């Protein structure tokens, strides 16, 4: 439970899809489990961007954010912030 509470929602941006394939949710889960360990539960991956660019939304701890930031192919990891109507 305490681990769950420490998790916040982050966006992991990975740029364009590799030329020969489109990254899917299962691919993102596999990547996260390889990086974070099998403790990463698939339901913590909230959304995968699959159609126009590569990236995903996941609930991560601060330690996991650090690990994911160093993952191959990751361009940026930033909190799921809020924007306002203008």
């Amino acid at each position, binding site marked *: 439970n305490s681990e769950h509470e420490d998790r916040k*929602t982050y*966006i992991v*941006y*990975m*740029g*364009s*899809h*590799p*030329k020969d394939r489109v990254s899917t949710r299962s691919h993102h889960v596999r990547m996260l489990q390889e990086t974070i360990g099998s403790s990463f539960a698939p339901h913590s991956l*909230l*959304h995968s*961007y*699959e*159609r*126009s*660019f590569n*990236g995903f*939304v996941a609930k991560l701890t601060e330690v996991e954010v650090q690990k994911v930031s160093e993952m191959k*192919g990751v*361009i*940026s990891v*930033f*909190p*799921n*912030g*809020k*924007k*306002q*109507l*203008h």
Partner: protein
Amino acid sequence: TTRSWDFMGLSQQASRVPSVESDIIVGVLDTGIWPESPSFLDQGYGPPPRKWKGSCEVSSDFSCNNKIIGARSYRTNGQYPINDIQGPRDSNGHGTHAASTVAGGLVRQASMLGLGSGTARGGVPSARIASYKICWSDGCRDADVLAAFDDAIADGVDIISFSVGGRKPRDYFNDSIAIGAFHAMKKGILTSMSAGNSGPKSFTVRNFSPWSLSVAASTTDRKFLSGVQLGDGRSFDGVTINTFDLNGTQYPLVYAGNIPNIGFNGSISRFCLTNSVDKELVKGKIVLCDFFVSPTNLSFLEGAIGIIMQDNNPKDLTFPFPLPASHLGTQEGALISSYANLTSLPTATILKSTEGKYKETPFVASFSSRGPNPITPDILKPDLSGPGVEILAAWSPIGPPSGAEDDTRQLLFNIISGTSMSCPHATAVAAYVKSFHPSWSPAALKSALMTTAFPMRADLNPDAEFAYGSGHINPLSAVNPGLIYNATEIDYVRFLCGQGYSTKLVQQVSGDNSSCSRGDIDLVFDLNYPSFALSTSISTSISQVYRRRVTNVGSANSTYKAIVSGPLGLNITVNPSVLSFKALGEELRFEVTIEGSISSSIASGSLVWDDGKHKVKSPIVVFDEN
């Protein structure tokens, strides 16, 4: 929109290419859409264009039609605010307003309870709308912004309208909006964005990525006045959007400073801060406050007849209020205060708004965010300005027009202000230009809008280009710009190299083999941008070269001469100063060199390429970075 399009020359009779315009799909990322609005009737529209690959989130009370061809909602965390409607229906009104400003059909005799009466219409009324609901009553989350971009790009929209922004500037690839717009640009889709409402402070512009269009908000020639009449016969012109008619009846007038609530004194209650005035003593009266009170924050005046506000704030941000309201300057306010305090039984009434005309217009609204660009100061932002003050457009009848929860008016049209309103005007003009030139890139569309903009007066806009960018959008001229400053993804990747991004990163962003080298530092000056900016310090000697190229889209055989106007202290040269084109589509290169120094915080000039038929104008701005 009952005035804005005519104001900038895009009349109902303007030349159009209906068969192409009706194939244009505008993606609106906002609060959703109200499909039953008269602006979105689909009579006369054929089936969706073949390129459309999107979908409609149909439910028992929501469906699309041949006008609104797609609608989806995004809530990645799955937790919906209690009062929001799940699905793409707009319970706010903002998204409906934006969508109808871009592409709403013609609605005759539209008005907000009689105000702003006329024919409401979008800039490209034949175009189709795809609505992506990313904003809810608790804001617009980055995850949802990106999910909508992911879909809109793949769905086949031609242009994206985005009237949303963050509070703080973020680096390009830590910002969901810049990321989404970059991938849109890669697919040939221009994203038009609101510049923000944090003006008039400097460095407040938001949505400043060079691959998107950043739009400031300016006035039309129409303004709304809400008069105040005192019991002694004197009358004053205030502002606000006041749809309420008190029929001239005089009501008791009370000064808020004289009726403090328990725990407050008059020095606080005079400003009408929340709960600072006695609730019982406002009932049946018109309350005079020494400050502006947000229309969403008036529940503590329940039972009051109306509110008169006076302060020094600019009077170009006018709101609809949930009760009769007028907002005046301190000069008039002092006279009303004096009357309220020195008369034994002071009375007043607030008149329903009437239409007036600005004598000198357009000017950029005080609230519109100002440059310089907070991340890349050598790229001028905002790019241009468009109508964003008191815009009448479609609304959701379940969205309170003032934003106040207790506002029970159910309206199909609302009059509101913001860069959210100017952005869809620019979106529509870009779509209009695209209907004449379907193959033009996002950069070409941007260039056409920027280089043909109506000049705006620096004497009305002290922040000059940092307020209005290249000037005011000019739809008719934008169709035929003569020359365009084109740019492709490769140009933006090189720009990113110059911003310090690594080869590895730009390869991942672009998905190709682009590479950066050590000599890429000054590439910002080589991005083929249709404006020129340079940050420096006062009295520092400068010598900066900009490399540009222009593509001929005017007449096959044409010769353009460079006309430079520069401020004192700066020597601006163009080499070559004559460009002779032999064919359409031909691209020629030139360099602009700025030398000298500045003695004030901002020095403005311009470069105009003139062939006798076209004037391709770019602003040149040198400014003190401090």
